[in-house]
């Protein structure tokens, strides 16, 4: 599927490809077109007085990129940094941000009709940022609108006055 074919397409109009990753025991999917690259974790430079889920900034080939640990953001119980810890570099509206996840599993195509609306449950994730739930056999995939999630005010990634 060509890149051009995806632009302007809505969820209901056909299948999209998702990059899936794991946080603790949950599995998430994000639009693959927002992903710039995937890297191993390297300790970032800490930024004082930033929220705890912002690990700091790293040097991505000359660009200063903030790193958000999704596990801290989503209150995962176990947060460790080992050789499997992965950083997904996202390009959202020409701003680059990296997210730390436990591991990247797959790239998969999901037809729009296989998406189920997420029920309203109490969660740390803003329900607006959840596109829906997909099922992979007996596993559940949480599809995120990563752009909306990262631009939320609580992420403190962009200047307050937008």
């Amino acid at each position, binding site marked *: 599927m060509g890149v051009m074919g995806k632009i302007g397409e809505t969820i209901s109009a056909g299948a999209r490809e998702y990059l899936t990753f794991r946080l603790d025991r949950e599995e998430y999917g994000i639009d693959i077109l927002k992903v710039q690259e995937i890297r191993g974790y390297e300790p970032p430079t800490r930024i004082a007085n930033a929220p705890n889920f912002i690990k700091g900034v*790293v040097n991505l080939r*000359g660009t200063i990129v903030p790193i958000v640990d999704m596990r801290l953001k989503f209150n995962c119980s176990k947060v460790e940094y080992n050789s499997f810890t992965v950083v997904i570099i996202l390009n959202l509206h020409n701003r680059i941000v990296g997210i730390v996840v436990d591991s990247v599993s797959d790239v998969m195509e999901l037809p729009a009709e296989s998406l189920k609306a997420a029920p309203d449950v109490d969660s740390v994730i803003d329900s607006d940022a959840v596109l829906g739930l997909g099922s992979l056999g007996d596993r559940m995939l949480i599809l995120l609108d990563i752009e909306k999630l990262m631009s939320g005010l609580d992420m403190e990634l962009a200047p307050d006055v937008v």
Partner: protein
Amino acid sequence: MAEAHQEGSGSGVDFDLSQFYQIFFEEAGENLDLMEQMLLSLNLETADDEELNGIFRCAHSVKGGAATFGFSDVAELTHQMESLLDRLRRHELQPNAAMVDVLLESADASRGLLARHQAGGEGDSPPTADLVRRISVLASGNVAPPQASVVSSQQMSTPVTTPATVAVQPVIVAQAADKPLKTTRSLEIRIGPLDHPEQADAIKELFRDIPGLGEITALTSNQADTRVFAVETSSSDEDLLDLFAFHVSRAQVAIKELDDVAAVPEHGDGLFDGAVGSPKMVSYDDDPPPGAPLAPLPGFGFFDGAPGAPNPSAGMTVGAVVGSAGSAVPAKAAAKPAASVVQPEAATIRVAISKVDQLINLVGELVITQAMLAQNSRALDPALYQQLLTGLTDLDRNTRDLQESVMSIRMIPMSIVFSRFPRMLRDLANKLGKKVDFVTQGEATELDKGLVEKITDPLTHLVRNSCDHGIEMPADRVRAGKSETGTITLSAAHQGGSIVIEVRDDGHGMSREKILAKARERGMDVSDQMPDSEVWMLIFAPGFSTAEVVTDVSGRGVGMDVVKRNIAALNGTVEIDSAEGYGMKVSIRLPLTLAIMDGMSVGVGNEVYILPLSSVVESFQVKSDAVSTVGQGAQLVKVRDEYMPVIELEKVFQVPRFDPEKSSDIMVVIEADGCRVALLVDELLGQQQVVVKNLESNYRKVPNISGATILGDGKVALILDTGALVRRSRH
């Protein structure tokens, strides 16, 4: 020729000209700026041909382009300007102030018209009818012009003129001299001094190899390092020089006419008409190539005199020869326009700044990678890895050279900034009824483009200040025993790693007493014992003004503090020097570029922070008992006779401590906004040049941090915002 032009604009319908519009607007803007600059520097009594020709060329370029693109209102106005200028440069009229005024106004009007076209024709166009009328009144003059120029001025006033029209004059001149254009000439060509005279022998082969070039015979030379040839040719000197350039440098070739009667060689045109700097233009006279009016870009080039410009030495040689051959044009006047045709833009290209920045970024990464390699290779045994290490040394040198060259791309000369002042000052001085000379020095000094843009406003303010407050009214100046005309000098120079820009005036300077009185009035803490330098710094306080009368020019007291803040934001400093009755001097010291900064790296815990070296005053080791507290809160340290607030970086940045044994015991005194504070750090790691990176492009502004940089090991280090730290200590 007029037909040829119309054909050109007519075919513009199917040939999309719009892609050239932007280039035209830029070039026209530059030409108008240049014209304005030259008009302002024009000395009315002694205006020389070079200046007048230059101004004419600018108007002409704009007109040519405007006509090509179908902007008839601009073309009409510039055409009138051109007609007036044409008569000026041919000395049929004597330039006067009224002309300069109307030309300046016309340049403004042209800018307005162009801006309107650029915006797609929206908005009202500035009225030009009055200007056109005024110019034509001035241009009509009262001096009866000589015969030949009547012909050409008629040519000039055809409503739709083509760029090639100017080239008509050479024909007239040449015909007036009653000399056919193409004729075989006998020349003596002297080549030397050469290190290897054999090189010149290759010239002989040229004549053999190129059919129709002419005959060459070697003559005996009285100097061993010089060769002399007799040549029979129909080619112009310029063509010959071009050919010879393959073998010998132009500067070493001297061409002399053997036949003295052939007084007007083809280059005569180049001399009578500055616009026709390139002899290639001659070919347009009787047979304009159809492509020329169609393609506007080369057209501009010709009239800028840029691409076809002969090199100065060649121009001088030719000019001198013509002069000695008894031409009516004095050699001096003839040689000058030829030299002025050589403009630096001849070999420039326009590149989007974003591309340059990308290049700088890439080179920055290369430098970091190189530093990493260098670091890792240090452990290698030189005996075993000799080749690798040699390669790395080369890489080191090449990377540095590359970085330097790439950084220099962003550098632009200060003349870009300076050039806007003469006009402003002229208007201002007229308004205030003062007489002011404006002198600039060091226009060629180069500065980062980003800095140039940001320094313009503060400088404008300082220059306006000098004119308004500094320079006295002419009568007062005479009374004070000074010349009636005041002088404002703007200079720029490199000093070490920074650039120093000075605004000087010879006005009445600042009065120490007045400033102190004013400061007391405002309740500021001052004493009569303050050194001069501190007194002068008082005027940077917000709302401070010593002007007795508030004018719309200045005197409201807003400004100097803004100037200081703007310059501090560029990591620069301001100093004032003044002597009452003799004038004052404001010096601005700026780093050469915003992208690279001299930094001092300090360690706190396991973290590294960078301090701008420009704000570091001193550093020292401190004993724990030297720090005293005030009200159990703020800490102060006594440095010599001064108590300074202490800022513990560890606390400000909440640095985690893994080693409880270790504690900060080094103080770094920094100065910003005229205040000093002492920063408490663990260790000083060293000084280095750092490439400043923006945190906000992907993240957000971080308190007390001005940016980030990448260290030799690829890690990010944050750069401290000293201004914010100092302000923090005050509250």
